[in-house]
């Protein structure tokens, strides 16, 4: 599963010869199928790195290998590269070029020369995933900042990339919308897309990432497991970052309680499992369900499980159950497991693709002493 997608070898790039390089001797490997976070203060070189990966910036020194061969900077080569790699920029206005929502979402795929029926299908799906289908034929200047952000993400989704780079995908979005974006990132990953996210929301990304690449003043400061990086506070400060709150609290409480800081909890449910030491845990009843059947399934399942807390995860099921009285509409996996830590049973409805993530979360909680059962509901 781990394949090397990108390899940067001693890459140096400066916007012009008179200014200090924005990337100064970057050596970095980006592996396929892993949740990769790119961290760093403003001006550390994150955006430049992303532009280098898409071949927009050509390094003055060193080379960038994609799938084992150096990036081909000819027109065709770049087209092939960019049909694999999509970027969502921080400011949606920078990457929106058309005046209608659907025109803009179609812009990327049409540039790739994909045939019309395919483009139409992709646009429709991307709009639906970002919940903006109803705006499809609206002019962009009528939309708010948050809505434009969704359009920008939909535009990248429609390219159906192998690698999705998102620069501050949650900036300017309200908390629920941020959670939706993270769900989407997870869905992409499960579909085999490698997702790279840079963000200033350290708590969010600490929970999400498998690998953290930390940039500092034009250099790669660290690459690997986030827990190792945060164990050196001085280094963290020097990079313009702060320690995620869950990490900090784990360290404090572990120290006072005389416990080992490891295993490191990354989410609320893991933290409470570690220090709450529940004597009895609840069960999470899992209902992976397709959108079309979700409402009926919900009704029949909830007949047997009356009074239980429910959660939905995934854009399709959430949309299908919008009329139902669901407790946890956003961030439901963590919320349901948190309930389970408290000893309560919950029912979790999700798009079938997320089955792996739910099981993975249950397994992680096992490491913190909470053996929460996940039971598939028939």
């Amino acid at each position, binding site marked *: 599963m781990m394949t090397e997608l990108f390899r940067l070898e001693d890459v140096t790039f400066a916007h012009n010869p008179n200014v200090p390089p924005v990337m100064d001797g970057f050596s970095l490997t980006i592996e396929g199928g892993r949740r990769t976070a790119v961290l760093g203060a403003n001006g550390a070189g994150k955006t430049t790195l992303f532009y280098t990966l898409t071949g927009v910036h050509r390094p003055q020194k060193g080379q960038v290998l994609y799938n084992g061969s150096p990036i081909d900077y000819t027109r065709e080569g*770049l087209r092939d590269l960019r049909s694999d790699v999509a970027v969502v920029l921080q400011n949606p206005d920078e990457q*929106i*070029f058309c*005046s209608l929502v659907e*025109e803009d979402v*179609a812009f990327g795929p049409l*540039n790739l020369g994909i045939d019309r029926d395919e483009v139409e299908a992709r646009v429709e799906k991307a709009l639906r995933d970002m919940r903006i289908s109803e705006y499809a034929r609206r002019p962009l200047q009528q939309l708010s900042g948050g809505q434009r952000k969704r359009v920008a993400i939909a535009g990248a989704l429609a390219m159906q990339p192998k690698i999705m780079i998102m620069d501050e995908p949650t900036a300017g979005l309200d908390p629920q919308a941020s959670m939706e974006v993270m769900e989407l990132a997870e869905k992409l990953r499960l579909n085999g897309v490698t997702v790279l996210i840079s963000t200033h929301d350290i708590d969010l990304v600490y929970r999400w990432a498998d690998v953290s690449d930390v940039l500092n003043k034009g250099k790669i400061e660290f690459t690997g497991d986030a827990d190792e990086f945060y164990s050196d506070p001085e280094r963290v400060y020097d990079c313009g970052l702060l320690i995620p709150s869950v990490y900090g609290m784990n360290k404090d409480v572990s120290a006072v309680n005389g416990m080992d800081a490891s295993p490191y909890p990354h989410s609320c449910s893991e933290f409470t499992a570690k220090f709450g030491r529940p004597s009895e845990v609840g069960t999470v009843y899992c209902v992976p369900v397709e959108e079309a059947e979700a409402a009926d399934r919900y009704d029949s399942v909830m007949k047997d499980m009356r009074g239980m807390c429910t959660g939905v995860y995934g854009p399709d099921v959430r949309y299908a159950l919008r009329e139902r009285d669901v407790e946890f509409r956003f961030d439901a996996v963590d919320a349901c497991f948190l309930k389970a830590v408290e000893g309560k049973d919950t029912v979790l409805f999700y798009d079938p693709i997320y089955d792996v993530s739910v099981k993975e979360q249950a397994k992680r909680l096992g490491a913190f002493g909470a053996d929460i059962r996940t039971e598939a509901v028939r």
Partner: protein
Amino acid sequence: MDELAYSSRMVDWAPLGKLLLVMCLLIVGLITESIVVPMITFVIGILLMAYSTNMKIPLILSLAIGEAILIMIIGSGMISIMGDPNEPALWEGQILWFKIHMTATSFNKAWIIFIRAIAGVTLMLSFASSTPIPHLAQAFRSLHFPSEITELIVLIYRYAFLLLERFLVMIDAAQCRLGYNGSLTAMRSYGGAMAGTFIFSMEMAEKSEAALACRNYNGYFPIYRPPRKMSVMWPIVAIGSAVVLYVFGLYSVGWIDMQQIFAPLFGW
């Protein structure tokens, strides 16, 4: 304007076809001597616009037409009072140092110009209010206009809105800091906001180049829902109606004599 165009009922009509029809009607209105023809084209223009906006002609369009009519009235008024001094005058007089000499010919001529002008304005507006810029660009493209120009039009058009937005926000920001406390201050604030918007546009231009590359831009803006291609019917209808109107125009010269209509009113 684009908002209007996208909600127009004529948005799906072939832009080239619309353009051809409007041009034909415009030209025929200009070249015939009969006043009836521009009257008809004017009515066609109004009807088209009414259909396009679903009978709800928005305020801004009415204002535009109103303004055009006002300008035309002034212009035609001038023409009507500068008749040939050798012809018998309907009205003679002097306003300040301006000598007035209105004749039957000049009066009729003024009317025909006036009606031609407002017919032209309504026709052009009916086209503009139903054709979004990207469609227009597509039309230009199919006419083999230089692509640099058409792409530039599309981009400028897109950024014009962003710049306007930014400018309005800066005006608000200036107000928050009392930027309009006195006329001199207000001027300086406007200047500051302009400069800020300008800098913003420079930054934007720089960034959008990279962003375009990321989205695989290869020199032209594809269009997702292309407007319909011009069918054979369009030129037939356009040219046909022009010819019919032209012939009708030849036949109908002198049907309506404005001077006679107005004569009882002024006692000419």
